[in-house]
């Protein structure tokens, strides 16, 4: 019972299937979203929508971007559940604590 090595590995493994195409597509999606993010504050200088909506839009985009990076670039999609749990649980906790902190102690930031 060695640590972590179930498979008594032969030196040459069969090559995995390449996902390069998918990664490039993901990259362009992220790129477009970042572009929108950058554009929003510039467009909204004229106060087309209230600041709160702008912030909500930005946070929403940020969350989606983050989720995409985690799922595809960090391979959480399709990987074992344990890894995702170890990482996503703290993220959810931190977000809740931040909400709680600002709601209770810095309400003027809303």
């Amino acid at each position, binding site marked *: *019972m*060695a640590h*972590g090595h179930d498979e008594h590995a032969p030196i040459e493994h069969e090559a995995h299937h390449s996902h390069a195409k998918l990664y490039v597509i993901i990259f362009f999606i992220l790129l477009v979203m970042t572009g929108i993010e950058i554009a929003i504050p510039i467009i909204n200088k004229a106060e087309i929508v209230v600041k709160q909506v702008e912030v909500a839009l930005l946070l929403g985009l940020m969350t989606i971007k983050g989720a995409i990076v985690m799922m595809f670039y960090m391979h959480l999609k399709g990987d074992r559940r344990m890894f995702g749990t170890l990482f996503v649980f703290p993220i959810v906790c931190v977000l809740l604590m931040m909400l709680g902190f600002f709601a209770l*102690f810095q309400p003027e930031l809303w």
Partner: protein
Amino acid sequence: MATDVSTLHHAPAKQRRGWLEWITTVDHKKIGIMYAVTAFLFFVIGGLEALLIRLQLGTPQNALLTPEAYNQVFTMHGTTMVFMAIMPINAGFMNYFVPLMIGAGDMAYPRMNAMSYWLLLFGGIVMYSSFVFGGGAPDAGWFAYAPLTSTTYSVTRGMDYWVLGLQLLGVSSLAGSVNIIVTIIRLRAPGMRFNRMPLFVWMSFVTSFLLIFALPSITVGITLLFFDRNFGTNFFLPAAGGDPLLWQHLFWFFGHPEVYIMILPAFGVVSEMLPVFSRKPIFGYEFVAYSGVAIGVLGFTVWAHHMFATNLGVIADTFFAAASMLISVPTGVKIFNWLATLWRGELRFKTPMLFSLGFIAMFVIGGISGVSLAAAPFDLQVTDSYFVVAHFHYVLFGGAVFALFGAAYYWFPKITGKMMSERIGKWHFWILLLGFNLTFFPQHMLGLQGMPRRVWTYQQNQGWDFYNLLSTIGSFCIAFATLVFIVNFIISLRKGAPAGNDPWDAATLEWATTSPPPAHNFDVEYIVHSRRPLWDNKYSGEGRGMTINYDFHPHLPPPSYAPIIFSFGLFVLAYGMLNLASAPLIGIPIILVALAIAFVGMNRWVGEIAQDPVL
């Protein structure tokens, strides 16, 4: 990693002899012993500081200590007991017993495990070297409220040593916790599902998560503090717009989970000992395990109950009062389940059992005063008074320390192969119980009579003299009890009766191997079928608790110098950082040397990983 692992299996590991064996060891059992011994030494040092405190307060207007000396002593007492005594004793027991209890050969990362230990030792040395090099020890209390920690009000270098010592201890704890978590997730024996793990393993698991989630907060806090003191920032300096309350949030967001980090392993130990000495299974395993998880989760939502006096406002007061009271529910569940474990058992009053029962009796008192502190208005009267001092000593001494002494008696036979003296052990228990209550019960009264904590002296005729005297007398009983323990330890180590594999007729896997266990822990692999594999094999029939896989090749990494070299690099780095702002011509060369040492260690380490793919 290209190396075929199977060729390594029976390669004889180079064993070094004498003290080199300890310096280079990556064996979780040796590391566990070093942890426990170091932590006990710090416990004794912290205890001596406590005696100084009690001597000073034994009589009103005593001039034994100057205010400056007193403030350093109580700060170091708190810091030592929290970070260098209770936490590492817990870590020592976890190190030694988590792998054994889950039937593993070692921790997940043996070398990183060694590094965790060395950083504990070096962190402690950094902190205590402030007495010699810093012009004085830290003096702002263990929770170091800003702006008292600023260079204006804390003029010695003590607080800088405090910050850097804590940084090293923090890295140590972080690495240790990741190690425990991975060990538990990945190295459990076949069949030992999560809901079959011994409760000590459960509590170690929860504790480790609390640590990795709570530590970053104080890491940020002390880094900001270090910048304030050395590089001219103003995070906590009100004169320049900084916010002392930010420190309190960052500190207590760590500090409250820290309380559970200290007590949960004690809960785990007691949940192991009570069933063994009652000869029954724990009552309501799931409730005991999950209430530990619940305490851990709720522990992150209550930090501001340490800050009621700062005028949080009605909404925050209400929220944190409610959340804090909620914690009494899972805690109550645990206590009732322990009591139910005793019910209709066949109780054997060996020393570990006495300490477990003492733990329940004392911890309940701390729990009751804890719930009352959660009631925000009452807290406004007694917070920062001796009532709080009494409360947390009932929790951390009456709770954690009692449980850990019990654990020492319980596991000593496994670690050394010899029994501890029952007769001396019982003396130890009764003297400690008496001394503990004599010391800390009067402090409830002191708090209610209006005595604030952290005062270096007090005037007579305030109704405080008698209780303070009692408390001081009690503290010497505690010291004497600890001396009795040390005597018992030494005598038993030399002449203790042989223990055999399973002296207590216990239930968990650590008792299935020899005492002391061989370097690879187990000669065979156990396939676990129940929560009490050993017990069920003994009492329900061979094979009911566990079966044996003989086709098993234990593998251990060889001893290594890398962890101590790397840790030593970080140790030197701390002194470089200390001088960076005040004397860059000294600081920068030290930092470069330190980085070079750390690089040598890291390089060795990476090379060893390539030979033997374990961190």
